[in-house]
């Protein structure tokens, strides 16, 4: 029987919660295709994580171990997992599309002479053929992608594409097998230092109920003040997409998106934000989204509850006045 393997992510011995979404994806695909589903955790001394995931509906859980797998390096992960997959072949290998996965999966897939379909948001199983859906052109289009070749196809899932709370528990704990992989000296060439945060986060945007966020459409640094006035009128926090912080117009700790903070406020008001995937993943869980953008085809409108196609410089000033009036 064909097999699906989910590789969960751990950092410093803790399961990255996004892995539950990948297990949910694996369970859904297994149920569509009738293929077997197994999971693996990779690291050094990570048996507790193997035990944690073995409670879910999985045929088997592997604990792939080597002292060389801690701290994480792409060389050790690719070498160890290649060895593991050659002994335990799978048709599909599923992972979350995290920065760590992006760092080693293309290397691992190439070492196995196979392919990785990255940043996938869904799948389709039609007349025996499995297709994966991924965004293209910054979310303006989506593509159904097929794969071929003899090796395992790697698929990495975008955050939030499957629901972690949909993971099915198993009737009994899945059996756990420890697999020690051999990573010889000299394989690992990079020497990673400690992970650190640049500065103490001044603002915790995850706690904000209202966020006014600005993107490239704000045009110039001096226009940021307009967004600030709107945020103040609403009693909310000011945030931004990556290019604004790259330009130094707002500090990095106000950045929303994959490299910044992930938020889910009551209201997310996006001003001049086109909605690149990297931004969307940081805010698509917001309860209500209002988007103001001059480009009617901006991907941000795909996820907006209320949309205004127009020039933000025309709309924001009267909006500030109306908000002030309404608040008295």
């Amino acid at each position: 029987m064909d097999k699906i393997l989910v590789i969960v992510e751990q950092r410093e011995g803790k399961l990255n919660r996004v892995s539950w979404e990948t297990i949910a994806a694996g369970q859904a695909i297994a149920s569509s295709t009738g293929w077997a589903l197994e999971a693996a955790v990779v690291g050094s001394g990570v048996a507790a994580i193997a035990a944690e995931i073995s409670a879910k509906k999985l045929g088997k859980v592997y604990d792939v171990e080597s002292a060389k797998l801690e701290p994480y390096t792409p060389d050790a992960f690719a070498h160890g997992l290649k060895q593991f997959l050659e002994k335990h072949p799978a048709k599909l290998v599923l992972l979350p599309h995290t920065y760590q996965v992006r760092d080693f999966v293309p290397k691992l897939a190439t070492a196995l002479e196979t392919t990785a379909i990255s940043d996938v948001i869904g799948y389709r199983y039609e007349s025996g053929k499995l297709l994966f859906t991924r965004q293209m052109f910054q979310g303006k289009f989506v593509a159904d992608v097929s794969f071929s070749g003899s090796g395992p196809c790697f698929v990495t899932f975008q955050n939030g594409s499957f629901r972690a709370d949909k993971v099915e528990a198993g009737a009994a704990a899945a059996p756990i097998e420890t697999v020690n992989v051999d990573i010889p000296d000299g394989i690992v060439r990079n020497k990673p230092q400690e992970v650190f945060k640049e500065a103490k986060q001044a603002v915790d945007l995850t706690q904000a109920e209202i966020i006014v966020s600005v993107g490239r459409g704000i045009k110039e640094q001096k226009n940021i003040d307009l967004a600030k006035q709107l945020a103040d009128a609403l009693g909310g926090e000011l945030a931004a997409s990556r290019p604004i912080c790259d330009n130094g117009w707002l500090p990095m700790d106000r950045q929303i998106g994959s490299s910044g903070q992930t938020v889910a406020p009551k209201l997310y008001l996006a001003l001049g934000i086109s909605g690149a995937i990297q931004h969307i993943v940081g805010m698509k869980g917001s309860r209500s989204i209002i988007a103001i953008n001059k480009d009617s085809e901006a991907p941000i409108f795909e996820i907006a509850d209320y949309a205004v196609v127009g020039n933000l410089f025309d709309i924001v000033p009267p909006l500030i006045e109306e908000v002030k009036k309404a608040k008295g």
Partner: protein
Amino acid sequence: MKILVCMKQVPQKDAPLKLNEAGTWIREDVSYEVNEPDAFALEEALRQKEKHSGEVVVVTAGPARASQVLREALAKGADRAIHLEDDGFVALDAYNTARAIAAAVKDDKFDLIFTGLQSDDYGYAQTGVILAQILGLPHATIIMQIEKTDAGIRVKRELEAGFFQYVDMPLPAVLTIQSGINKLRYATLIGIKQAKTKPMRKVTMAEVQSAMGSNLQKIEKLYVPQKSKNTEFLEGPPAEVAKKLVDKLKNDIRVI
């Protein structure tokens, strides 16, 4: 330092895109620009060269139109360019693109190879890492800083949620560069003039074909995403739209 920068031409950010008749790709009659992270990768290469001397070579794989990206890079200060020129390069998966580039530069010995962290069209975020594996080189991704050290380089990797990490690595190496690592320069008039005399080597598909295989992934269908949300469009003159928005804020979203 001898540095190779892999660059790609992609549709302009604001360009309205239309699907081709087969629904497998976009219509090519749009405006193009350099993929943004690649522009930062080039800038970083030019800065490293200014610090440590050496050579900056730029490479792209794409149709004739893609040479514009290389000409701009030469005008900004790159020393020479390599253009893998064929319409067929557009439809390659990341593995084949990397194999084609590796074959085209096999006689060069680079200390560093840069790519942008991902492209705005496919968004694979893979070509640089695959290239490293093919060439047998160490790599690091999403790089925000590069310092030369006695033993090689120390790079600053961006991690998620505001975390970073320094990584020491030997040379030669492949790095994927994050947007915002530096401030981009403009080409000068003299640069644009000098670019015309700088070497640009053309490489045909036939020259690299033997290094490539069949694509292992294929776009079966490209389409406009189905909306998962019922978006309400608010229309009218600005003052009216502002009133409508406040009504939503008050009665539906309930934040006022």
